[in-house]
């Protein structure tokens, strides 16, 4: 089958969309490595802006990383069991829980942050610690973990597996950790990648919740776009890309792997 004109038109269109998304990314990377953006590439390549970013914002980079990992830990502990319960007992109550799971995505981050500040802002130690930001991140990412695991649980008959295990004498917890969790590994991993990616890039909530001592990377980015030279903001964005792109590639590869697997199921 030859390539039709329609194929090339659609390909061209898709390439245009891709260019729209990627060209500014590329420009920003170049700006972060150029001596002077206004003059352009003629001014020479340099790593000094990355050095400046490190000097000013290194704590934010580490903070974003460990908050993301902590968010992952909490969403694993809270989310995987929840997804299991939702899959095991589909009923009115679980439908309600599913509705509530949508809320953190529906309600703007700004509003959730405001609500948290009004209710818990009075506890100074909590307010000024990174745990405050952790709470926000968990609220925002938990639905994604639950949904990811739930999707996998809905795609195979885990009850029969559990029944066979039960008939062999396996108790409730043994069945959960020995049968359910290993079989939902792909959903857990996809969920984990999503949670970490979303947490590293979270801004709306964190902007409101942060204090000078608990700045994360995206908050620092906003900071640098406003008050630093363009080259510094771009270099900082470059650091952000370096952190997030491997995660996105892993997520995308894992996601398509699952689609392929599900297709053959």
């Amino acid at each position, binding site marked *: 089958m030859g390539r039709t004109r329609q194929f090339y038109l659609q390909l061209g269109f898709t390439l245009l969309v891709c260019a729209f998304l990627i060209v500014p990314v590329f420009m920003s990377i170049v700006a972060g490595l150029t001596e002077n*953006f*206004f003059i352009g590439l003629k001014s020479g390549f340099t790593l000094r802006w990355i050095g400046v970013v490190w000097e*000013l914002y290194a*704590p934010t980079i*580490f*903070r974003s*990383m*460990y908050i993301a*990992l*902590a968010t*992952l*830990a909490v969403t694993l502990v809270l989310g995987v069991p929840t997804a299991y319960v939702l899959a095991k007992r589909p009923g009115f109550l679980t439908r309600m829980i599913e509705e509530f799971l949508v809320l953190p995505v529906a309600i703007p981050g700004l509003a959730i942050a405001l609500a948290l*500040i009004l209710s818990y*802002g*009075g*506890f*100074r130690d909590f*307010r*000024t610690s*990174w745990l405050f930001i952790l709470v926000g991140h968990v609220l925002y990412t938990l639905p994604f973990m639950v949904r990811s695991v739930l999707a996998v649980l809905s795609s195979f008959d885990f009850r029969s597996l559990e029944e066979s295990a039960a008939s062999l004498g396996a108790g409730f917890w043994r069945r959960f950790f020995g049968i359910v969790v290993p079989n939902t590994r792909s959903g857990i991993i996809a969920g984990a990648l999503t949670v970490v990616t979303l947490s590293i890039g979270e801004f709306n909530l964190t902007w409101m919740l942060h*204090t*000078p*001592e608990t700045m994360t990377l995206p908050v620092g980015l906003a*900071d*640098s*776009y*406003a*008050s*630093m*030279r*363009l080259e*510094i*903001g771009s270099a900082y964005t470059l650091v952000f890309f370096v952190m997030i792109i491997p995660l996105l590639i892993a997520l995308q590869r894992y996601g398509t792997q699952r689609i392929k697997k599900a297709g053959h199921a």
Partner: protein
Amino acid sequence: MRTRSLIAGIAASFALAGHAAAADVICYNCPPEWADWGTMLKSIKADLGLEVPHDNKNSGQTLSTLIADKANPVADIAYYGVTFGIKAREAGVVAPYTPKHFGEIPTGLKAPDGSWFTIHYGTIGFFVNVDALRGVPVPKSWQDLLKPEYRGLVGYLDPTSAAVGYAGATAANLALGGSLDNWRPGIDYYKALKKNRPIVPLQTSYARVLSGEIPIMFDYDFNAMRAKFKDKCNCVFVIPQEGTIVLPYVMSLVKNGPHPENAKKVLDYLLSDKGQAIWANAFLRPIRPAAMTPDIAAKFLPAAEYKRALVIDYAKMEAAQNTFRDLYQKEVR
């Protein structure tokens, strides 16, 4: 197994978290590039041994956050434009403190009880990136900016929230014949300016002037001079022909802050000889004039230009802020 190494990794990062440097004094609105707080904070670390993280709020955000934090303050010191200092005192979120050299500050530029006091001041004008103008002549007056050749080239910070925004509005209003009781000339000016498609950011946009994104910005002389002398851009500062104002920036000790003793040390340092010299070096007019050296003074525009920059009744300016804000929000759309 994978889970075990995951748990180990998470435990390690918690350990890392515990070792993050704790701050000694929390400042609201100490942005590293504004007024060269970056150098000041480093200097405080070197001379006093106190760690003060930088913070990028603007004056309005600082006040609002202080009010929101009132029951359990997070910050120790706050930096903002004078009108916000006055408001903070009214809102009861700051504590009186008279640092060393308090007596050297002129009367209108401090609260008698020390709830706020000026550390340096700047003059409002046009911060212009000449290269970014691409041949369009450098504007000389407020009225110039209404001309069609400046379409899309002008920016100013939101007058309803940023101190520099409100200062710019006050300056334009007074220059064009208005007063703190009569905002009509100022409002009409902004309405006319709107037709020229200005950019109105919510936060500092120093970076955008440097990059040429906003070629002309209503800003302070010290920002323009920093761009010219430190960041080596082809930038100039223009004091508009019709006139402008001077705006003092003040510090306050936050009431019931977490580290009051260290905070006081920092506040004293800001008014000390060394502290004031750092401000002068950053092209801010130090409140203690002795700190200004002749070679830095030479870099400013000549005194004749500065004659047009007036000191005004800042208490009255503060009282008028709500009236102005309502008018602006209603009419300038």
